[in-house]
């Protein structure tokens, strides 16, 4: 039974890694700032959540997993706010998308 749970947790961690790689790739692929930050905020957060869930499953139920949950909750709350603050400062400072003619 423990072997199966370990195996599932490893698969979840690999999926989280794939999401993280896509997040980093997305930051380089898009040419404009707003599309770049959209990808990096969303996909990277999903990657983070998936990896953390995989680690939590792998480590079973104890004090360590409680701390992992705290880190996960913190990141899920703060990352959207941080990316919103960045985008807001960009928009207010007059950064606009250049229309492709």
């Amino acid at each position: 039974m423990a072997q199966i749970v370990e195996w599932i947790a490893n698969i979840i961690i690999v999926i989280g890694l794939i999401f993280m790689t896509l997040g980093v790739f997305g930051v380089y692929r898009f040419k404009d700032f707003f599309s770049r930050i959209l990808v990096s905020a969303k996909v990277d957060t999903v990657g983070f959540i998936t990896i953390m869930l995989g680690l939590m499953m792998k480590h079973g139920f104890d004090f360590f997993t409680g701390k992992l949950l705290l880190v996960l909750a913190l990141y899920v709350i703060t990352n959207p706010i941080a990316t919103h603050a960045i985008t807001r400062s960009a928009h207010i400072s007059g950064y606009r998308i250049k229309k492709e003619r």
Partner: protein
Amino acid sequence: MSFDEVVLIIVAGLSVFGLGRVLIGPTVWDRMIGFTLFSSKVIVMAVLIGMIIDRSFMVDVGLIYGVLGFIGTIMISRFIERRGDI
């Protein structure tokens, strides 16, 4: 080379790419995206190290880094938005 160490090395490689955006980024906000990307990878790496050496204080390191990174990002974006007078 257990599974956790392989994941740690992959995440370390990804964080370097995150920093690449900090170097290239034309605008200052691109650099801030690179920084938030890098800090999320650092949190994952801290937790993974905590898993590998089986100590729970590394998770606290990741937590504190996350909080400080968030505060830093908020203050920098406010600084840029108000052009210097916070």
